[in-house]
């Protein structure tokens, strides 16, 4: 593993350019690491840890991060899921708590998870409410929406432990999304964008179940068997069934879930395993951490990497990918993603900058970002924290320190957002950096709500309220088109699918016209004719009598008439007309107007 060289530019950013790449023999990407941005500002100095973050090319300006958050604590610990959201690519963030439905709330809501759907741009956050009436809860946010919707219980259980989630195209329909949550009891699946969830499909004993969705809807779940096994199970039918366990790798060393004896500090460091999938060709990658050797009774824990090009059937020999100090430090809690260009983006904790023993209480750590442009063969690293931080400043008064169990990172287009804890300010805070990869910004397809498209830069698209798509243009990309959306109040509106779903509606398909047959409407028929005496008769027939007492609005030309519904019908008799006229069902507005001819 080569040690990377970093340069600080005039803006306080870390930049790796071609010169550095040439020096190290590394590939050619330009990497611009922006300054740290704290995203749990409203959490003050209260404890926060255990981070996760999600974004997608489907909606790259909107990124969500989450963590365990102690801001409501007084004399006793109260833990909730803290959430940070940006709608402008990280220029500004707001942070708040997302809690389960009231009946399922508890004093401990943690183990946060996030997901993003590259197809629709939806975001999800979720966590576990640790109580007998608790369980796994999730909340979703539609593209463009300012807030998350009310959370729903994905699974009510008192025994849930560590969940992670993923979203991706359905195995049997490229135009549908499936959302998955994997946890100790198995995998649960949602086919309605996270509103309702099925029963768990058990994957057997293990922990740290991490789901990922491949480009063809294949589902991979990595986990640790509490022993030497780095394992994975695979589903090719959308999570309905899973194959037998596949061994990705065999650990050399292992330790218990509550054990941190291999590391400086006095916190637990569960050795869970992490996988990611190339969204283009489906190449699978795995990173886990294990003991490489022992020096002076200190464990040297490193990040191990391997790859599969046959959907997990076979894997390359694991090898260490991190740089290190002398004496070596420990690298752990990796989180990585693969972007649309096939680049790998990795973040992790690292103790290399302090010469320290494993039995020290004041463990000193940094956070790192690393990128690989060659499918993991070589990496370049960036130190994200300005100084090493002390794990003893965890903001908690426990017998054992606690800095969470994992890290997070999201990638959207050519921008990367690591999400990590640092106590560099003397208390535990959550940070991200905006890391831009590549050269000059390129325009991409910017889709608007009316289905139109313009090739714009990312920022310009955001300013105009569009949804930006990374790595494509209007010539190559088809923006979502509006179509009839049946809303809960039985109205029909022309919306794009994501807007329709976020409004609680049923999308009838792109191009579907509200003026035509509108199955969302409770109205069975709309008829109008003109009698010989010049009386126009219009009739609205409902499918049942549930709308009796309500009014419909029918117009003759521009004159509106409100007509009551009785026995499932509303009848208008209007007199007297000559010549041609247009009769329209104004409200609800699901039908084409009718032209009638009077004597």
């Amino acid at each position, binding site marked *: 593993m080569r040690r990377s060289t970093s340069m600080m530019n005039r803006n306080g950013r870390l930049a790796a350019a071609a010169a550095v790449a040439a020096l190290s023999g590394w590939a050619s990407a330009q990497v611009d690491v922006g300054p740290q941005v704290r995203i749990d500002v409203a959490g003050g100095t209260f404890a926060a840890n255990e981070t996760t973050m999600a974004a997608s090319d489907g909606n790259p300006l909107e990124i969500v991060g989450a963590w365990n958050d102690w801001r409501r604590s007084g004399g006793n610990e109260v833990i909730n899921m803290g959430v940070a959201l940006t709608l402008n690519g990280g220029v500004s963030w707001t942070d708040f708590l997302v809690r389960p439905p009231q009946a399922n709330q508890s004093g*401990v809501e943690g183990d946060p998870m996030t997901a993003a759907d590259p197809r629709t741009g939806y975001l999800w956050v979720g966590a576990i409410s640790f109580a007998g009436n608790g369980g796994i809860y999730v909340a979703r946010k539609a593209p463009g929406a300012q807030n998350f919707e009310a959370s729903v219980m994905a699974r009510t259980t008192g025994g849930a432990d560590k969940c992670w989630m993923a979203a991706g195209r359905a195995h049997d329909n490229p135009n549908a999304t499936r959302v998955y949550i994997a946890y100790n*009891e198995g995998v649960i699946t949602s086919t309605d964008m996270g509103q309702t969830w099925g029963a768990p499909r058990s994957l057997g004993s293990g922990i740290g179940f991490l789901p990922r969705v491949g480009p063809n809807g294949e589902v991979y779940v990595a986990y640790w068997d509490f022993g030497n096994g780095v394992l994975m199970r695979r589903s090719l039918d959308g999570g309905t069934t899973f194959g037998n366990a596949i061994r990705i790798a065999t650990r050399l060393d292992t330790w218990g879930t509550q054990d941190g004896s291999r590391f400086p500090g006095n916190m637990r460091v569960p050795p869970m395993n992490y996988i990611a999938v190339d969204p283009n060709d489906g190449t699978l990658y795995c990173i886990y951490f294990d003991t490489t050797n022992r020096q002076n009774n200190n464990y040297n824990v490193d990040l191990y990497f391997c790859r599969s090009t046959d959907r997990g059937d076979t894997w390359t020999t694991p090898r260490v990918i991190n740089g290190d100090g002398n004496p070596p430090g420990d690298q752990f809690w990796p989180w990585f993603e693969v972007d649309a260009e096939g680049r790998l983006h990795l973040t992790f904790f690292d103790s290399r900058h302090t010469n320290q023993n494993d039995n020290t209480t004041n463990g000193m750590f940094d956070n790192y970002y690393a990128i690989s442009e060659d499918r993991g063969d070589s990496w370049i690293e960036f130190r994200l924290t300005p100084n090493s931080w002390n794990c003893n400043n965890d*903001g908690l008064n426990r*017998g054992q320190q606690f800095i969470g169990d994992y890290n997070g990172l999201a990638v959207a287009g050519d921008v990367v957002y690591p999400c990590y804890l640092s106590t560099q300010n003397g208390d535990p805070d959550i940070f991200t950096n905006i890391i831009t990869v590549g050269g000059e910004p390129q325009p991409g397809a910017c889709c608007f709500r009316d289905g139109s498209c313009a090739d714009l830069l990312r920022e310009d698209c955001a300013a105009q309220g569009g949804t930006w798509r990374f790595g494509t243009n209007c010539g190559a990309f088809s923006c979502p088109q509006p179509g009839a959306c049946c809303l809960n109040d039985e109205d029909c509106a022309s919306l794009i699918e994501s807007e329709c779903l976020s409004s609680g509606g049923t999308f009838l398909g792109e191009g579907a016209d509200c003026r035509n047959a509108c199955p969302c409407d409770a109205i069975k028929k709309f008829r109008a004719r003109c009698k010989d005496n010049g009386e126009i008769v219009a009739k609205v027939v409902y499918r049942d009598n549930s709308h009796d007492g309500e009014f419909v609005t029918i117009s003759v030309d521009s004159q509106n008439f409100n007509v009551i519904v009785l026995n499932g019908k509303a009848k208008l008799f209007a007199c007297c007309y000559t010549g041609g006229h247009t009769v329209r069902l104004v409200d609800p507005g699901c039908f084409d107007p009718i032209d009638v001819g009077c004597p």
Partner: protein
Amino acid sequence: MKRFRILLTWAPLCAALLIGCERGGTPEDGKPSATAATASTASGTSPIEDYRKERMKEAMRGLRYEKGYVELDPEQAPAIGEEVRNETYEGLLSKGRTELDSGLSVEAIGTFTRAVIHSPQLAPAYEALGDALITKGRVNESQAAYTSAMGVADDSAELRFKVAQNIQRSGDLDGQIAAYGRVLELDPNHAEAHSRIAIAYYYKEEYAAAWTHTHEAERLGGVVPPQFRGMLSAKLAEPTN
């Protein structure tokens, strides 16, 4: 009830196996308060731990582990024994295994605890209890359960292997080598035991011994983790003979 008068005392076994039988709970190092924003419970533990601790406490109720082997709790076990009197030992074992395979570790611990109380003279529930306890990071209690299983049943290589794995988790390299060596005493063809001994020698920087056991593992048809060969070769070229 006769079954509750059975006292399992395998301390000599603990010593013979070089496993820690006197260990207690999670070590605490008296860490000072960190910041003004420090949140704590009255007991200095987190509510998340309290919640889980309560579930675990209930699941483990009826057995004690402090001595490094499993004892029936004279205050709790009799009542639980009455509760499970009409259940079958095999039924409890089956239920617990189903729970464990469904990721319901705490429930499985509870069921295996009841199975042990049901028939403390039988080994399978102890072994299963040890398997379940490790899933919650309870290495010491898991070891105590395995120790008791070894005390009430015929010794087996697989049970010794589980004991050795727990010693491996503790990081005791010499203990690990000795424990996997005891596996080989019963099953000289246990390739994975050789593999684990090889790794322990590697960590001890005794590379020649590591090669010896690597070759033994491979001769027996086993494989060492593929990354290990390269790592060992980087320290000491593979002997040709």
